[in-house]
């Protein structure tokens, strides 16, 4: 059970949060201009890394804000947490 430091509320128990998959996948601004393959890349392709992964999390049972988390999936160590729109910390 992680202890997650919500950037808006502070440290809260994991059960207040919802995981939202890989972070920094931007919705294409002009989807109609994309080929099927390019659109599929956005739609379906996600990384599943053993190691450091950039993820989206939502404080669903709290402030309901989305934010980003850098987590090592091999040992669940949370390396960094930052707000939506902020630059990811250098790897």
């Amino acid at each position, binding site marked *: 059970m*992680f*202890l997650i430091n919500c950037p808006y509320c502070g440290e809260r128990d994991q059960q207040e949060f919802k995981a*939202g998959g890989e972070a920094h996948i*931007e*919705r*294409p601004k002009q989807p*109609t201009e994309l080929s099927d393959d390019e*659109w599929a890349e956005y*739609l379906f392709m996600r990384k599943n890394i053993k190691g450091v992964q950039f993820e989206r999390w939502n404080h669903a049972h709290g402030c309901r804000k989305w934010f980003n988390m850098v987590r090592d999936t091999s040992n669940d160590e949370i390396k960094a947490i930052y707000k*939506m729109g902020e630059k990811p910390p250098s790897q």
Partner: protein
Amino acid sequence: MTKNLRVKSSEYIDETNRISFKFNGKTYHGFKGDTLASALLANDVHLVGRSFKYHRPRGIMTSGSEEPNAIVQVNPGTNRTEPNVRATEVEIYNGLEASSQNCWPSVEFDIGGINNFLSPFFPAGFYYKTFMWPASFWEKYEFFIRHSAGLGKSPTSNDPDIYDHRNIHCDVLVVGAGISGILAAKNAAKNNFKTLLVDEKNELGGSTIFENNEFNKIDNKTPSEWLKKEIEEIKGIKNLEIKTRTSVAAYHQYNYLLARENLTDHLETKDKTHKIRQRLLKIRAKKVILATGALERPLIFNNNDRPGIMLSSAIKKYSEFYGVACGSKNVFFTNNDTAYESAMSLYNKGINIEAIIDIRDQSESKIVKKVKEAGIKIYWSHTVVDTAGYKRLNSVSIMKLSNDGTSVTGSKISISCDCLGVAGGWTPAVHLYTQSGSKLKFDEEKKVFLPSQNKSEQISVGACDGDFKLDEIIKNLNQKLKDNLNIKETDLDTIKVEIDQENSKRNIWLLPSDKPLGKTKPFVDYQNDATAKDIKLALREGFRSIEHVKRYTTTGMGTDQGKLGNMHALGIIADTAGVKMGELGTTTFRPPYTPLTFGTIVGRNVGKFFDIFRRTPMNDWHVENKAEFENVGQWKRAWYYPINGETMHQAVQRESKAARESAGILDASTLGKIDIQGSDASEFLNRVYTNAWSKLAIGKCRYGLMLNEDGMVYDDGVTTRLGENHYIMTTTTGGAANVLGKLEDYLQTEWPELDVYLTSVTDHYATASLCGPNSKKILKKIIPDLDLSDENFPHMSFKEAKIGNIKCRIMRISFTGEHSYEINVQASYGKDLWEKCIEAGKEFNITPYGTETMHLLRAEKGFIIVGQDTDGTMTPIDLQMDWIVSKKKYDFIGKRSLYRSDTMREDRKQLVGLLTDDPNIVLEEGAQIVSELNQNPVKMLGHVTSSYFSPNLKKSIALAVVRGGKDMMGKKLFVPMENKNINVTVANPVFYDEKNERLNA
């Protein structure tokens, strides 16, 4: 008459408080402070259970939670009964009953004991090898296996007790209140750390409070005397919360620990009622100090499991702490000095010590000298090769060990005895440490696994970190506290510790016998009857991984999780396979450390709190009017309203006819409602719905379909424009929370530039949906001054009005195809609104209808229900709803996916209507649809999604998804069922009032 083996009055036993309890139906007496184990031992009862596989008689082996043998059924036959409870942990009280497990007809005479003599036929992996063939016999085998499997009996009636959960946040959690834990907690609390100290026992002090070695001293006092003073002192420290009878079950990452606090198990039954029995503590600690101590190891020799064979440290605890001698003729068998302390404890109380058998060739410590001076016979370099006595030990046979320890020589000596104390050294209790994800390292010299790489904010102190001697413990503890808590000085700086130096040790994992291994029974896992022979067999059969050997032999898989014997199993594997123990590693220690009852895990979340449910403001009316309910999401929705003993079918047929012929009313309060405001609200709706919203006039309603980015239908509902920048969106009942979440996600992450605010108002409004040709007349009666003409209040529009003083929002929208109104009021007026409608509708025979009728009515109109007619693989095109997909809009969620090669396939499953050739046959929802009956394998074209008998059309109707169904209008298909094939014809899904004339009727 049984013997009384009380040997001294102990301060932990209240001899003025005599307690009567029953074991296996017989009444015994003990004292307040006794455990079931100590009280039985005081009555000279050793035989308490039978082993799992061979049904061998077994006795009490330990004095704590590591007990493998003495597991009992507490209060059998009552609703508080609990199986697999360790007799060493049960505190006795008047009226306690306990019984042996895994024996029939009794523990004294157990039919299953025959397995012991058949043991050559039950090798490791017996079940895997035997019940493999013929495969068809499995059901027969299963009956017998299930019958003989399991140890105790589960309760069959509801648990009468209350359980609770509590969250605790602390700076420092100290696990274990032995000498290390007490000193750690004291220093943490005194330095202003909010500290929690927990211990599984009812008394603080661990093993030090019954320490009797007169050569160990702290500040010139015996360690027990010194520690008692410390215990008194910490009880008054602020910042320090102490919890006894509290066992840490699990240590998760981020210093999240679960502990079970036992509050009433030691109380008499009459004092248990209306109290919380156990509380699950959910602890978040900034730092964790593990002071979990060490468990004494047994020695592995032939027939090492008879009742009367116990851990040496347990004998000492029973003697010093409970004032009970475990036998009258005692022998100790050891590889270190601790057995000598136990021997002296008994000797000092006048109990006979027949001999001490030591596998070492000498020891020079003071305690050993003392034993020699007492005239106790010591057999150096000897080992026990066999024991005798079926239900109670009566003798041990010993022989001289060879120099390399692998064989025995000389002649056999038999020593008569009724109790054998076994001391095989100590195993640090690192279970919680490894649960936290931290890593162990094998210490070759001490032959123990020790904490090595901490993964959390934690330290291990005392015996669980491999410090077994008092001086090491104090010195290392002091340094670790200073480093970890950042303290300059502690009161440990000035403590003077003197100890008896021993420390010649000799470790032999499997002791030799004069008989070959195949003829002996050296038990490694007592509870599951795994012997050294089984482990070696597993290795011979090719198992190498410790995890595989464990599962194949079931070593360490009992309720005790192999707390005693796992190390020996590892040692035997390492020796046999010729690998180093450090390379072999350990099996995984999994939570819980000791078993938890389900009650503790679920806490208050039982009965009506098991899963929360939501009720509409009109719920009481539905209950009073005998509605049947169905669960929709978390909501309890009125399903249908049977009258005069109607079946569901009869009620639904009546309700459906009434709604079309005169008037019906539906509680629609559960629909999700999202208030949308902001200057970009219209643009936002344009992006989330497939159709266009910018031109929707204020006061008008529009149906919208929401897709996922993959183009599949996600939700639908009607949205109303209340003002220039103000909409109210309705969603499906079950989808409300997810839709809000999805919209928030897009707003926060993809379109943060949009000025839009979303608020869930589902619970704020109650909604009554009035429908049918008389709905207008009924509404007119309730709100006389509202102009209900089609010109002023046409279909798909909205009005604000007042019923008396109550403000309401009325949408003229329809899910049934009839002229209808959805009236929304503040939730607290919901029942009032409903009753007003019912009252006003009486003259029109207004009929309340439930969700089933709603489903039927909308199916007559071919309206979809997201989640019933769609399943996450249907696009709007598949649903033949092309009309709602805007061709003009540049983008909306899911738009691009509608032009993927896959979503444009002609042969996708598409929504169609189905009519049965026999109008009285109603198809089953989910039934498969085929075009050919004689194909093999038959090609499945699709399935039925909604199916009803329509009372208004007087025939069976169905919606279905069928491959290429769009182009199959009029085609004959088949629905093959178990006993018949049903002929069907593809039809227009709009079965009723295709021209929508009734909307304005």
